[in-house]
């Protein structure tokens, strides 16, 4: 049984145009429109897509800082989306999140020790000070920080260290599910590798299930078991990580993969590049039918028709009837 099962998740935001009357109904922005995927215990699902594709909104809906406007978030069989705020609060310790901007995610007025201890003190206020100190020290050591840094403040640390503090805070309650919202995109490449490897080690040791969000496919394929490719709040392609990265089917996935540089000048020069033109359309007025058709190199007239386009092939799902398998190196 999957630990997390997302079914037809919808997230909409109300957008008020400037200068409108208070009683005019706001326009709906569909940030996430009908997202479904499963996460097996101990595995990692990678969410990829360019900026504005709704990845972070999915993370926020899963962790509960943004309300889901439709669909189900089944965590161990219980629907998180349907819970009252009080009920939900009790489940929060099982689902924790690592944030994109390491420094902004830490309160500048609190010491590192207080930051890491906050989930512990919140969910178990009866814990003795010595016990809190011990567990904070343990987890800080586990993420590769010296425990004697507890009295320091976030601005005294580097980006990579701040991200380790963020990970320590997320893991101090020993959650079952960890949501990483672009945890490495604000770090430089050498530190990225350290943090990704740390996350993999922690996942193995603590039996974590993970959702890993990134706009960089090369990072995601390194850590994920399954990959979900998103565009404008919808799934374009999903499947096992190797299948999606090595044999992309959807034109959007192919374009994403072609944008990852190959660290070999000869191969890099030789391969053709289908470059995506234009900008992401506004989610306030998404294109009819297939949302990707305005930028798709293979768009046909009937792509504008609203219909179910999902094609299943083994474990892979592709939302395009004109999909064809391409080798990752040849796209």
């Amino acid at each position, binding site marked *: 049984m999957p630990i997390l099962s997302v079914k037809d998740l919808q997230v909409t935001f109300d957008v008020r145009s400037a200068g409108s009357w208070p009683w005019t109904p706001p326009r709906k922005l569909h940030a996430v429109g009908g997202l479904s995927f499963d996460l097996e215990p101990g595995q990692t699902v990678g969410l990829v897509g360019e900026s504005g594709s709704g990845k972070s909104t999915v993370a*926020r809906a899963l962790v509960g800082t943004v309300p889901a406007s439709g669909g189900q978030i089944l965590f161990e069989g219980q629907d998180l989306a349907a819970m009252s705020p009080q009920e939900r609060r009790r489940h*929060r310790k099982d689902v924790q*999140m690592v944030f994109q901007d390491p420094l902004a995610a830490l309160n500048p007025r*609190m010491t590192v020790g207080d930051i890491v201890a906050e989930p512990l003190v919140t969910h178990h206020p009866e814990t003795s000070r010595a016990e809190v100190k011990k567990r904070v020290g343990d987890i800080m050591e586990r993420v590769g920080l010296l425990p004697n840094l507890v*009295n320091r*403040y976030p601005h005294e640390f580097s980006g990579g260290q701040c991200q380790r503090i963020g990970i320590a805070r997320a893991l101090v309650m020993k959650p079952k599910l960890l949501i990483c919202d672009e945890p490495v995109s604000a770090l430089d490449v050498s530190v990225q590798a350290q943090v990704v490897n740390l996350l993999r080690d922690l996942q193995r040791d603590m039996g974590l299930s993970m959702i890993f969000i990134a706009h960089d496919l090369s990072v995601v394929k390194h850590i994920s078991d399954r990959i979900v490719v998103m565009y404008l709040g919808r799934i374009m392609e999903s499947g096992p990580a190797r299948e999606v990265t090595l044999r992309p089917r959807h034109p959007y996935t192919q374009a994403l993969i072609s944008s990852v540089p190959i660290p070999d000048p000869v191969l890099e020069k030789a391969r053709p590049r289908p470059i995506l033109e234009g900008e992401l359309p506004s989610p306030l007025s998404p294109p009819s039918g297939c949302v990707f058709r305005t930028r798709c190199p293979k768009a046909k007239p009937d792509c504008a028709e609203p219909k179910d386009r999902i094609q299943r092939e083994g474990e892979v799902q592709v939302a395009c009837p004109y999909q064809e398998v391409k080798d990752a190196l040849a796209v």
Partner: protein
Amino acid sequence: MKLASGDAKLLDETAQLASIRGRSLWADARGRFLRNRAALLGLIVLVLVAIFALFGGYFAKYEPDYVDFSLMGANAYRGVPSFESGHYFGVDFDGRDLFARTVQGTGISMLVGVVGALVAVVVGTLYGATAGYIGGRVDNIMMRTVDILMSIPFMFVLILMLVIFGRSMFMLFLGIGLISWLDMSRIARGQTLSIKNKEFVEAAVATGVRPFTIILRHVVPNLLGIVIVYSTLLVPQMIIFESFISYLGLGIQEPQTSLGALINQGAEQMNNGTLWMLAFPLFFFLVTLFAFFFVGDGLRDALDPKDR
């Protein structure tokens, strides 16, 4: 053996490492503030004025409400400031010792200023932070209430209150407390709006921290810098406000006095050759205000987020 001593040294070093203290943003700000000469001078002057107000009474030869009838009508030449007579600052129109009265007036004026600022800080910050953090309709209702309260000309309301319910310290504090927090709540709300979208607040929400705890633990400490600056600038505003009320003759009641009341009485005698009645209270009034403004300026520079 050598190895063992090396190990011992390493252990020593590790033990020293065990107690690394961080430099908080507050400590940084304190350092910047203490390097600012004008602000430091302002703080020293404030401390001196506070000492004067608290302990000056012990040096006075007369009680503030003791009337020396022998001086009546002879103030201009027999009530002049002098050390021999014990009237260091001279006497006021009624023949009372001006030194003792200035001590009392300074104390009451500072009390009014500090109480007003304190009410502003506690009520205004919590009110504004709550409105800003909850947002939506609650925010609208709370802030429109503030708008309505602000649109009432409070000086008239306060004067009416003092006339109807009688002039008393309590009424004055009530009146000052009623208006002082309005501006503060707006400032706190504005800051909260930007703080609540920071990721560390989201992290706290995701952790499951209760909204009120988030306001107290994550929002308020981060807007305190601006609140402190504003409140040090609010204290002199409150003192001026009280002085104005007292100047109109509605504030502090006799035999109690405040700097505003003393200045008022001194100004009435300006043409009678007894300028000291105006000069001494005015000196303390101005020095206190300037000191507060310098301290406020220094705090603003020290806590300025752009400096971080």
